[in-house]
Each structure stands twice: as structure tokens, then as C-alpha cells.
């Protein structure tokens, strides 16, 4: 457990800071591609692009010093975290304007703006708050990290189901991501509920490893599909075709899940668990 001030961040906390910075910054590219599909029809669609390109820079000093809780890094972390949560919630509200909320059919759900997607900002924002509000090494830190990773996999499950339904699961391989994320969710839920089940946590590590494989496989499949897309322009194929970076979210969340499991495992040690 570290004190507020000048002590170095524990490795796992520091990794979560890097994770949060990387995710927020990369979202600018990902959202640029996603909103490019409808030519940034609403001016507000630029907000997350600019936000991700600038605000995460505030986290860099703390990451470089490996001190997330000194006075300045703590303040900046709160600013970035709270604003990320707000951007995520605002995005959710903007996406609610999609056709699903007008017609409320399964079909319109599939083709509406992915209303849960902006919550990725909220999730990353919570990570930054968690690092600053929950003392390092406390028993709650690891399960909270695991919980947030699990929430991410819930999003992955919903989005991979809806996105692949857009082309009617034309390739059977499109079910891999749905099945994979379903088991990621279920294993992480049980890991959170049964925090002392050492062996289950080890099983979860393998499940997370599988998510990394699925993520990389998805990236290759999406990139291959885009390289052979209907358009003569590779750029158009990448914008309007399969979202090339989306599968990497599996690997990304698996890393977060592994950090949470690592912390929980190190906290519970090798003690046996009881129901």
C-alpha cells in the first residue's frame, strides 16, 4: 500500500494508468473511423476525437514519473477521469437518437448507432478514479479492475452480436467473438463473486489468454476482409468495411482482466476458498 504523495505507484497500478492513457488516446483514431462512416453528420461527433487527442496528455507526467498520486497527477487524473465519464455518458445520450429508439425492433437495434460504445470512455474514467480513490493494494482494487474488465466484455458481447448481425453472420467465424466474450463475461462474473477461489482465477487467466488470441485472430480476419472489400479504395474499405481495430478490444480488455486477476491472486495468495 502506498501513501499519497511522492511514493512510486505499484507496478499494477502504474500499468492501469498506462492502460487508461493508451485506451483514451487510441479512441481518437477508432472514433474518427467510426464517425467517418456517416461523415461526422453531427458536429458533436468531433468531441470525442478532439477529447481523446488532447486530454489524455495530462496523464503523461504521472506515468513518466510513475507517480499517479502526487498532487498534480492526482488532480489531473481526476480531471481526465471525471471528464471521460461525462464524455461517455453524453455519447450514450447522443447515440440514443438512433433508429432503435424510434422503432424498437431487433432490426433497428442492429443498425442503430452503438449506444453502449461511448461507455468505453466511462469505463476508462472509472479506472482513473479507482486508482485515486481506492488505496493501492486494498482488497477491493483487484476485484474492481476485474469488474470493469467484465463490463467491457459485456459491451464486447453486445457489440460483436449486433455488428456481426449486420451481415447476418455470413461467415460462421463471426460467432467466435460472441462465444468468446460470453465466456469471458461469465468467468469474470464468477471470479468477482468468488474472490478467494484461487483455481478459478487461474482458469480465468487462461480464458483471458484465449481472449487475446481471439482479438488477434479477429484483427487478422477483419483486415483481410477489408483488403478484399468491394471498393477500389483501401481507405473506403477500412472505413466502411469490418472495423479493423474492434477485435483488438478483446486483447485490450483481457490485459485489464489479467491485471485485476493478478492483483486478486497476489492478495489471496494460495489460500483455499470456501463457498
Amino acid at each position, binding site marked *: 500500500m502506498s501513501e499519497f504523495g511522492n511514493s512510486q505507484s505499484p507496478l499494477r497500478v502504474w500499468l492501469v494508468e498506462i492502460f487508461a492513457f493508451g485506451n483514451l488516446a487510441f479512441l481518437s483514431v477508432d472514433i474518427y473511423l467510426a464517425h467517418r462512416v456517416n461523415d461526422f453528420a453531427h458536429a458533436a461527433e468531433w468531441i470525442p476525437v478532439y477529447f481523446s487527442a488532447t486530454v489524455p496528455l495530462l496523464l503523461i507526467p504521472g506515468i513518466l514519473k510513475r507517480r499517479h498520486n502526487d498532487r498534480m497527477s492526482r488532480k489531473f487524473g481526476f480531471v481526465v477521469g471525471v471528464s471521460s465519464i461525462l464524455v461517455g455518458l453524453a455519447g450514450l445520450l447522443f447515440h440514443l437518437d438512433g433508429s432503435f429508439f424510434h422503432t424498437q425492433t431487433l432490426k433497428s437495434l442492429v443498425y442503430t448507432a452503438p449506444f453502449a460504445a461511448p461507455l468505453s470512455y466511462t469505463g476508462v474514467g472509472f479506472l482513473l478514479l479507482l486508482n485515486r480513490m481506492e488505496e493501492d493494494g486494498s482488497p477491493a482494487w483487484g476485484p474492481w479492475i476485474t469488474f470493469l474488465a467484465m463490463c467491457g466484455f459485456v459491451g464486447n458481447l453486445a457489440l460483436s452480436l449486433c455488428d456481426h448481425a449486420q451481415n447476418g453472420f455470413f461467415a460462421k467465424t463471426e460467432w467466435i467473438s460472441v462465444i468468446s466474450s460470453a465466456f469471458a463475461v461469465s468467468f469474470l462474473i464468477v*471470479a468477482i463473486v468468488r474472490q478467494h477461489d484461487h483455481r478459478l482465477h487461474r482458469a480465468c487467466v487462461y480464458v483471458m489468454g484465449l481472449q487475446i488470441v481471439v482479438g488477434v485472430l479477429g484483427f487478422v480476419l477483419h483486415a483481410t476482409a477489408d483488403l478484399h472489400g468491394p471498393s477500389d479504395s483501401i481507405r473506403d474499405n477500412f472505413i466502411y468495411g469490418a472495423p479493423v481495430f474492434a477485435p483488438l478490444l478483446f486483447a485490450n480488455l483481457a490485459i485489464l482482466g489479467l491485471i485485476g486477476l493478478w492483483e486478486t491472486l497476489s492478495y489471496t495468495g494460495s489460500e483455499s476458498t470456501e463457498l
Partner: protein
Amino acid sequence: MSQTSFTSVFIAVFLGTALVVVSLVLNENRPSADVDRPSASLVKATGKCAECHRRETSSVVHQYEMSQHSAKNVTCLDCHKPSKGQLKLDHKGFEIAKQLTSKNCAGCHKTEYDQFLRSRHAAPSWAAVAGDVDFTVEQIAFAEKYHKGTIKRPPNALSLLEGPAAIKSGCMNCHDIGRPNPDGSIGNCTDCHARHSTSIALARQPETCGQCHMGPDHSQLEIYHESKHGVLFNAQKKYFDLTADPKKLSTADMSVPTCSTCHMSGLEGLKVTHDTTERLSWFLFAATSDKRPHYERGQTEMKETCLKCHTKGPVDQFYAEAEAVVHATNAKVNEANQLMAELREEGLLTPEPFDEPIEFLYFDYWHYYGRTAKHGAFMGGADFVQWHGNYELLKVLVDMKEMAAELRKQKASIQGEAP
């Protein structure tokens, strides 16, 4: 310890499987037309296109939603995908045709397209303005087989005098129903059915035909609205089902006819046709009208339509009276023809068309009043037979004779003055 782990793993596997099953059930409950299509692009087009077009050109989405195509789950891409020979356009991740033509419709509606190709709505319509220069040898040969002399012809003399702007915004707005397309097909179906609503009801509206078949040179819309058919239709159309399946159309759906009922419909077992010339028996549009090559068959088929509502006696009598107007009009136009031929023989007119006032008068004579009298007779428009037709024929011929006399007098006076 191992039991505890088993419980955890069991719960995790159970939950995971349940989530997968829920996903499968959700996907299974999506409309089968969304899922069971032959390509990923077609599946995607069932909903993806509307995501942007609800915002960019929203009316096309609403028009499509009103259509039978929408009811039968035809996707945007089903119509917009490039057919053989069409230029392709990359459009937001889809490959679509740069220009839609009748070829795209013919992919599913080949019989209708083939019937249309045989009609005067096809190549003869375009050639009536532009001549044969835009057609291939095969297209000319095909159309000449059905409408001799209507394709192998020079461009319309009057249009040439009026100029390209008038041709583009005037003539071709109607005559492009038979345009030769770059993909080798002819015409477009949307002139009558509109684009995204692809409507049968629209094609049954008299005003749809009347977009072109109106005005002094072919006043069919005005005649129809004056006729008993038109008056009844306008009074009772709210009771009719204009969306009825063409092959199952009955007088219960439409107990009063519109243009398409008589010329095209499959009313109570009749053969539906998109060859609008099939049931015609006379070349009414010509200066002097001759019988069409398939006069007997055309008249029999049209009378079969009449007999769905009228008894044979009145139908035969109607035809006899209408044909009497045709013969009478022919006689009057022949008199005018004779007058014009004499003036040319006497050297009182130049060989160029439309450069002397009497040529315009002569053109109006048969092109406006002659046609109007004949169309009025065949469509039950008494006022058009009489006041807009025969009265004008009488009056204009007097004017023409007076003009001819004046021309002869001028020539005589010039000859008298000559040394």
C-alpha cells in the same frame, strides 16, 4: 478445494453457455429476409443504407417503405447493384451502379421488360425526336420488326429547329422513356412507376400517363377526365384498390377503368401486358390514320376489356362510330394534304419545313385537331370530337384555303409585273 473450484467453473460455463444461447435466439428472431440472403452485402443493405439516407435524402426511404419492394424485403442493393455492362460506383462500402436503367428492373421483371421493348414506348419513342443515331444495329432491327419505319428515320425536323435546350428540357422529358442506355438496355421503368415507391397504384393513375399524354397534340388526359370513365373514376376512386395485383385485378378492385386498365391490365383473366400498343387497332397519331398490321387482334383484345363492363352491342356500336370519325378525319386531312401538295408543285412553298406560316397551320391541322377528334372518338370525349376537333378542322381548312389563294395571287401578281 477442488469441489469449490468445480462449482465456480460450472457456474461460469453455465452462465457463458446461457449467454451464447441468448445470442443465438436473438439472432434467430431477426427477420429471415435480413439473414437468409445470398451475400453479406445484400444482408447489410437491408438496414444499413437507411441509416444514412434517413438523414441525407429521407424521402427516398419513406417512398421505399411505402413500396411492395419493401413489403417483400427487396433490399436497396437488389436494385442498385451493378448489372452487366453498367459502370460501378464505390459508395460507402457498397458497390452500386452509377446509373439505374430498365436493365436493373429486368433482373426480376424480365417478362414486363420484354413486353415494354416491343412497344412504341421503347425505341420508337426516342427515335421520334432523335432519329436512329443513338441505337445499335441490333436495336434498330428489333424495333423495326414491330414498328416499321419508326426507328430508321431522321431526327424530328421541328425539334432541330427549336434547338437542343428545348429538346433536352422539353421533348426528351417524355421521349426518354425509350432512351438507349449505355448498358445496352432501352428505357426506364421509373417514368411510370417512380423510383423508390415502385408503385403499381401510381402507374394506374391517369395523371401518370398524363405526364406526357396531354396537351393539344395528344390530349388523352383531358379527354379521359371529360369522359364518363374519368368522371366516375374521380368521383369514386376512394372505393377502388389501385394496389391490386395486376394478374388478379377484378372489377371489384376497380369497377371504373383508367388508362392502364384498358391498355395493359389483366382485368379478370386478361393477359397483362407492358406493350401498350398491343390492344390498339389504328395509327391514330398519324396525319391520316391507317389500320395497324395487327388490326383485328388489337381490336379484339381491346373489346375483350370493354366487355368486362359493357355488352357487345354497345361496344361494337362505339367502335363503328369511332371508326367513322377516323374515316371522316382522314378525308379532311387528305384534302389539306392535297392543298399542300399543290402549293409545293406550284413552287409556292420552299422545300424546308416550318419556314412558312401555312406549314404551321397545316401541322396544327392534323397534329392538333385531327388527332384530337380521333382520340376523342375512341375515348368517349364528345367535346374533343366536336369543338376541339372537328370545328377547328373546318375553320383551319378555310384559313389554309384563304392563305393558299393569297399565295397564288401574290405569285400571279409577281409574274404579271415580270417583263
